[in-house]
């Protein structure tokens, strides 16, 4: 059977908006759910946009897929509204607790089943940075993959990709199809679906695949299939805020005086046991001395 149109597959992943402050779970192994804002990974949406542009110019079809619980349907519907023809969600609670290796097995199997000409996704996740699963899946399948992609042109079973290189340099590389392309978040501006497209997306059924559709054994998925050890999270070490340290070239006596006149709080006047009225008067004097009240304007 001859393929009539270029088939493209886009992986959409969920990330947490890193702007609200994150809290670690009590056991230190994860991030607390409460207060988190979940969004579609921006780099994945860029990858979808690139796939849509390629599909528009080459008469191709785009399938979006996500791995996760039913809340990811929102992201898939966004993909449908942007123009994808098919949406697929793959999930079984047993897939939880996996690592990049077991997730790569899932991606690998999905790509293996759908056999797309091009597999797109983002280069990095907004919250966790690099995700090795798509590249690992491609490597396992023997498909070439290009990271940090910015633009793509396609001709004669081959893609030419403009990609970011070191220190802001740009590089053009070519790869034979089928291949995998991992796009940067700033490679393009994802299209903004209109109201009609959003409403149309609600009528399209999202296919849900479970373990039987994938034909994979549970022992290689999720936590049992994980090879990487899990370690507790901790906040990164803060770089010291620069403060003046005693000059080693000064005589010891001068260093002592420097230290005793410094400290985080000045010694003088840090404790006052006075009445409320006196406190108000003292504060007034301080504010006036600091120029916060009174002065020229008064």
């Amino acid at each position, binding site marked *: 059977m001859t393929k009539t149109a270029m088939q493209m597959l886009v992986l959409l992943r969920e990330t947490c908006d890193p702007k609200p402050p994150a809290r670690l779970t009590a056991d230190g192994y994860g991030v607390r759910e409460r207060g988190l804002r979940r969004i579609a990974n921006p780099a994945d949406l860029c990858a979808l946009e690139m796939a849509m542009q390629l599909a528009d110019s080459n008469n191709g079809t785009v399938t979006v897929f996500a791995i996760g619980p039913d809340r990811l349907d929102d992201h898939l519907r966004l993909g449908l509204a942007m123009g994808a023809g098919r949406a697929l969600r793959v999930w079984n609670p047993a897939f939880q607790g996996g690592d990049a290796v077991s997730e790569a097995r899932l991606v690998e199997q999905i790509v293996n089943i759908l056999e797309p000409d091009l597999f797109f996704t983002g280069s990095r996740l907004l919250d966790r940075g690099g995700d090795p699963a798509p590249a690992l899946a491609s490597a396992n399948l023997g498909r070439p993959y290009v990271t940090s992609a910015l633009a793509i042109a396609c001709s004669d079973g081959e893609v030419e990709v403009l990609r970011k290189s070191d220190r802001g340099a740009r590089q053009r590389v070519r790869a034979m199809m089928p291949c995998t392309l991992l796009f940067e978040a700033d490679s393009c501006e994802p299209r903004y679906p209109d109201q009609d497209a959003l409403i149309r997306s609600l009528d399209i059924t999202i296919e849900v695949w479970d373990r039987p559709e994938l034909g994979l054994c549970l022992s290689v998925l999720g936590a049992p299939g994980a090879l990487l050890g899990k370690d507790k999270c901790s906040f990164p070490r803060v770089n010291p*805020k620069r403060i003046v340290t005693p000059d*080693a070239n000064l005589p010891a006596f001068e260093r002592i005086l420097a*230290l005793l006149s410094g400290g985080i709080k000045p010694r003088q006047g840090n404790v006052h046991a006075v009445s409320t009225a006196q406190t108000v008067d003292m504060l007034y004097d301080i504010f006036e001395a600091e120029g916060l009240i009174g002065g020229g304007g008064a």
Partner: protein
Amino acid sequence: MMFQNLFSPQKLGKVEVKNRISFQPHLTNFAENCLPSERHMYYWGERAKGGAGLITTEEMSVHPTDTAYEKLVEAFHPEVIPGFRKITDYVHQYDTKMFCQLNHNGQQCDGSISRLPVWAPSPVPDILFRETPKAMEIEDIEEVCRFFAISAEHVRQGGFDGVELQFGHSSLARQFLSPLTNYRQDEFGGSLENRMRAPLMFIKAVRRAVGDDFTLGIRMCADEMIPGGLDLAQVQEICVLFEASGLIDFVDLSIATFYNLYLVEGSMHTPLGYTIPLAAGIREKIELPVFCTGRINDPVMAEKVLAAGQADMIGMCRALICDPFLPKKAEEGRLEDIRSCIACNQGCIGRMGVNRTLGCVQNPAVGLEKQWGEGTLRPAPVKKKVMVVGGGPGGMWAAKMAGRRGHDVTLYDRNEALGGQVLTAMKGAGRDEFGVIIRNEKEQVDKAGVKVELETEVTAEQLLKAGADTIIVATGSKPKAHPVGGADGAGVYNVWQVLDGQAELGEKICLIDYDGHHRATATAEFLADQGKNVHIICSSLFIGAELGPTQDLYLTRQRLLGKGVTFTPDIAVMEVSGDIGEKSVKGFNVYSNAWDEWGPYDNLVLAMGQEVDEDLYFALKGKVKELYRIGDCVAPRKVDMAIWEGHKVGREV
């Protein structure tokens, strides 16, 4: 949570500490027969109960030649292990990690205790002990290494989570590192590499003994602050090299030496957080977790230091001696309940300095946690009507404790605010933090349900009429009315009158100091700050004779000299005389017996002792069911005794 950084976990080697508060090593004198005692267990256990993430024990000696003081635990004896076990089991039940500090004090030892020569890198006597040591031979260094290893094995068998080697202000290791104390010409002296050789041998020996899976850290002296000694730049280099050895897991810090002990244990006059610049300087250079210790007595400052990345762990020592439950209160946001340390150094360092057991002016339960610790206060079996007269620290504590036990308590004070003599004492130069004693307790008195009647001068008749079951008299003391001939003359004031602004003073003042404590020196400084020309005459060898143990003496003298105050010691003042502007002082030298006269002065200020205010007590004696008197109205002493007696009586009524 209010303090996100302070209550985040921290890894120290293989150990994870639940928060960043470390109860730092310090002497306690609780050891019995050079072994850890039950008192140690309850003392450290109370701080674990209070929420400290890490506790490091006081220094434990590693060798018989290391005898800095008599009640030192000797970790090289296997007999310490059962005691260690009891302590670590007790502490671990509160999810607190516990490290043991090992040390050899080198030249900073007293050979008269061990009856052995003191060992050091070179025969340089320590400024405090003044004993010329034996320069260690290579065999001696190797023996200390072996003993470090033996002691470390005992630490591990004792159930500790880690070991800290003392390379700080009082240690043989620092003496090897410092050009000030290491004059050796062999492979252990001279270049930095050579000076680091012996300390590295100690570290290696301990690492070999405890294994790779046991946390091992060092406590470094960040800056010796003495000419010719180690400075921050050199210590940064040393820390980088120790880190590069890969043998240690953290760097705890101290400062100074016995040449400048007032920096090791900064008193009220040193700024809060005075060592932060040094910790930040070390942390800039190394990746290992760094501790910062030194007058960080509140969680807000601790959080700031962590948030600014100036340290990874906050060492709190006196802050947790004073309030073992500071971490828990901070975590729960109960900041108003924290009893802040004021660094008066009287109960802790002051008592240690004269070889007594550890105490705290504001926390009478220190060292008596078994009897008086958290959870030991029982409700009173019979509710009584208790009246406390005198709202100084003693009266406040008595009222608070009685109130907590469920009694119906009323506290009377003749002044417009609680605090008693503290309100006056805190007006002395640099003594304002002394007032925190009152601020700490005011809230607690209210919370205990005590009714406070201010500006109320109660008489014996009123109290008897009110029908109290128990009366506690805490009326304090006042300056002696006639301490010396002529003291009732014009232009003669006592220190309280000066500090309270009741004295009309000229420019030239003579202060007669029989006190030797802050009462005199802080008043002299108070006057000097006002531009007065102050001369002090005292009976002791030097002014501020009582300020040595609390580490206040050096800086007090430095400040007074800087402000132009002059001194005449050794004088027994017998008479003061003259009119205002022509006051004179007559006395004799206690050694030569030569009489002399000083003057003329505009005014004289006397710090010549207190007398009890006991009238109310004797008016009530024999007429009340239960009558107690506490604090200065028993005998004029210092604030620690007033609080101690107030606490005790409040528990017992």
